[in-house]
C-alpha cells in the first residue's frame, strides 16, 4: 500500500491565483475574438458618431431649402444663374445640371440639349438679363425635391432613427422578456391570463392608439418611442414564453427548485441566460421593425413632424420617387441597411458569446 506521502509534492515558487470568471466576463472575451462582431460594433459606433457630429460640419442644415435646385443627383454640377435686375442689383439662383432643361422647357428639344451640353462643358450661357455659369457648390449625396442637402438630412434623420430604434427596442425587450418568462414559468391560470392580455393588446388598433396619443400629447416624439415600444414587446413575450416552457422541464431547473431557490432567482439567473440567443436575435430583428414602423406611421401622417426627418421617412419618400430620383431612396436605404447588418453581426456575436453552450465545432 503506497503511502499518500510517497510521491513528492511539488509546490511552485509562485502560486498563481486563477480568478473565477463570471458569465459576462467570459462573454466579453469570446466577443472580442469575433472579428465580424467587432466590425459590426465599429460600424454602429461610426454611424452614430457621424449622425451626432456630421450635420455640424456639412455646411448645410437639414431644413435649408433651395427651391430652384430641386432634386439633384449626388455630386451633380450646380449651375449659378445671375440675374441683373432693373436697379442693377444682382439676384443669384442655383440650378442643377440634370434639371437645367426645365428652365428652357419652352424651347425646342435640340436647342435645350445643346445649351445643357455647353453648360456641362463649363461654358457660360447668356440670355437677356440672365447669365448661367458653373458654380463650385457640391452636394455629396445630392438634394431632395426642395433642394435640401441629402447628406445632412440622412445624418440628422439617423439621430431620430437610431434613438427610436434603440430606445423602443430596449423597452420592448425589457418588458417582453420579463412578461414572457413569468408567464412561461408560472404556467396555469397566470400564464393564461397573461397571454390573453397579450392577445387583447395585440388586437387593439395601433393606429387609433397612436392618433389618440398624438392628439392628447401633441407632436412630442418621445411618445413615439413609447408607443412603438409598447407594441413591439408582445411578440417578444410570446417567443420567450415558448422557450421558457420548453426549458422549464429540464433537469437544471428541477435542481434549482429542489435547492429551494426563489422563483425570481431561477427565472433571472438560470432560465433567461439560456434563452439569450433567441432574445438577442429577436432584438436585432426588432430594431429594423421599429424603424420601419416609424416610417409607416409617417406614411400615414403620424410620425416625426416636418421638416424633421428619419431614415424611415426618407426611405418611404424616396420610394415614391424611385424612378425619377433613385438616390433619394438608395442612400438612406444604404445607411439603414448598413446599420442593420452591423447590428446583426454584433447580435450574432453577442448571442454566441453569451450562450454557455455555444460550441466551437
Amino acid at each position, binding site marked *: 500500500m503506497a503511502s499518500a506521502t510517497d510521491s513528492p509534492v511539488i509546490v511552485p515558487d509562485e502560486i498563481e491565483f486563477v480568478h473565477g470568471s463570471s458569465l459576462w466576463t467570459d462573454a466579453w472575451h469570446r466577443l472580442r475574438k469575433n472579428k465580424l462582431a467587432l466590425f459590426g460594433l465599429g460600424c454602429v459606433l461610426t454611424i452614430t458618431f457621424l449622425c451626432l457630429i456630421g450635420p455640424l460640419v456639412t455646411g448645410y442644415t437639414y431644413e435649408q431649402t433651395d427651391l430652384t435646385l430641386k432634386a439633384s443627383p449626388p455630386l451633380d454640377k450646380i449651375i449659378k444663374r445671375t440675374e441683373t435686375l432693373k436697379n442693377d442689383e444682382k439676384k443669384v439662383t442655383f440650378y442643377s445640371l440634370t434639371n437645367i432643361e426645365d428652365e428652357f422647357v419652352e424651347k425646342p428639344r435640340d436647342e435645350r440639349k445643346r445649351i445643357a451640353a455647353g453648360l456641362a462643358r463649363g461654358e457660360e450661357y447668356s440670355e437677356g438679363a440672365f447669365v448661367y455659369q458653373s458654380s463650385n457648390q457640391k452636394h455629396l449625396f445630392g438634394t431632395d425635391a426642395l433642394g435640401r442637402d441629402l447628406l445632412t438630412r440622412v445624418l440628422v434623420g439617423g439621430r431620430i432613427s437610431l434613438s427610436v430604434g434603440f430606445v423602443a427596442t430596449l423597452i420592448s425587450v425589457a418588458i417582453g422578456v420579463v412578461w414572457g418568462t413569468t408567464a412561461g414559468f408560472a404556467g396555469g391560470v397566470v400564464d393564461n391570463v397573461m397571454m390573453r392580455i397579450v392577445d387583447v393588446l395585440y388586437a387593439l388598433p395601433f393606429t387609433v392608439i397612436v392618433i*389618440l396619443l398624438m392628439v392628447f400629447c401633441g407632436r412630442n416624439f418621445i411618445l413615439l418611442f413609447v408607443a412603438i415600444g409598447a407594441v413591439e414587446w408582445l*411578440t417578444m413575450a410570446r417567443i420567450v414564453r415558448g422557450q421558457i416552457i*420548453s426549458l422549464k422541464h429540464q433537469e437544471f431547473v428541477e435542481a434549482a427548485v429542489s435547492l429551494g431557490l426563489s422563483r425570481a432567482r431561477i427565472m433571472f439567473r438560470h432560465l433567461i441566460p439560456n434563452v439569450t440567443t433567441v432574445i438577442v436575435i429577436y432584438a436585432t430583428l426588432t430594431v429594423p421593425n421599429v424603424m420601419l414602423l416609424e*416610417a409607416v406611421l409617417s406614411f400615414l401622417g403620424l410620425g416625426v413632424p416636418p421638416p424633421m426627418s428619419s431614415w424611415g421617412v426618407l426611405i418611404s419618400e424616396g420610394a415614391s420617387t424611385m424612378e425619377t430620383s433613385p438616390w433619394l431612396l438608395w442612400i438612406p436605404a444604404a445607411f439603414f441597411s448598413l446599420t442593420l447588418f452591423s447590428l446583426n453581426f454584433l447580435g450574432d456575436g453577442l448571442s454566441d458569446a453569451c450562450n454557455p453552450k455555444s460550441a466551437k465545432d
Partner: protein
Amino acid sequence: MIKLIVSRLLQLIPVVWIVLTVTFFLSKSIPGGPFSAERQVTPEVKQKLDEYYGLDKSLLEQYVHYIARVAHFDLGPSYTYQTSSVNEVIARAFPVSLQIGTLAFIIALAIGVTAGVVAAIYKNQIWDYLPMSLAMAGICVPTFVMGPILAVYFGLTLKIAPVSGWYGLDYAPLHPMILPAVTLGLFYAAYIARLTRGGMLDVLNQDFIRTARAKGVPDRDIIFKHAMRGGLLPVVSFLGPEFAGLISGSFVVEKVFNVPGLGQEFIKSVFNRDYPLILGTVAFFAVLIVVFNLLADLLQSAMDPRTRK
C-alpha cells in the same frame, strides 16, 4: 387536449369583449366624426344624420346598443359604404387578404426555413453568410420599397403581372395575388430565416445531438428527425400572431398593388371614423389572433420533445 381547446376557445368571448370595449371608447375619443368633410353639411342635416346613426345618444347608450347587436353577430352598417353592412364588407375583403396572406406564408416558410437550416448547418461558412445576408437585405428592404420594384419589373418590364386591381384581369398571365404575396413573403422569409437559424443553432449545440452524432446517426436524420422539431420552436411562437396578421391584410402591400383587402379597409375605416367598421375589423382580427395563437401553442407542444409528458 380537448379541454384545452375548448377552454381557449371560450376565452375568445372575454378577449373579444375587452378589445371591443377598449377600441370603442378609444375611437370615440379621437376628434373628428364620420361626416366631417371639406365641405360642411348644414347643421340641420348633421343633426338628422347623428340621429339616424344613433350618434346623438350618450356614449354609454351607444356602447350598450352596439354590444347587444354584436351578440347577435350583427356588426352594424358601415358609414363608408352606404349600401353594405360591416359583415358584408368583411365577407368580401377577407378572401382577398386570405389568399395573399396564405401564399405569402407558404413562400416565407419555404424560403425562410430552408435558408435558416442551411445557415445553421454551415455555420460561419459561405453558406451561412450568403443566406443570412440575403435575409438581412430582405428585412432592410421594406414592403413599400420592394412592392413598387417588383411591380415595375414584373408588371412593366416583363409585362406578365397586373400592377393594380383584383377583378377582371384575365388578360395577365399571373394572378393578381402573386406579386403582393411575393412582396410580403420575401419580407417575412427574412425574419423566419433568422429565427430558424438561431433556434437550430441552439438545438444543434445540445448534448443529445452530440450523442446522436457519436452513435453514427446520419446527418440528414439528425437535422430532420431530431433537430428541427426543437429548432423551429421560436419560429412557431412568432408565427401565431404573424399569420393572423398576414391573412387579415397588410395594408401597405394592398395599397401599393391596389387590391381590395381587409388591411386597407381597416386603415381607411380609422381615417374615416367609420366606427362600426373599425370595431368589426378589430373584433375579427382578435378572433383570428386567439385562434392562431392557440394553434401555434398546440403545434409547439406537439413539436417540442421536452414538453411532452
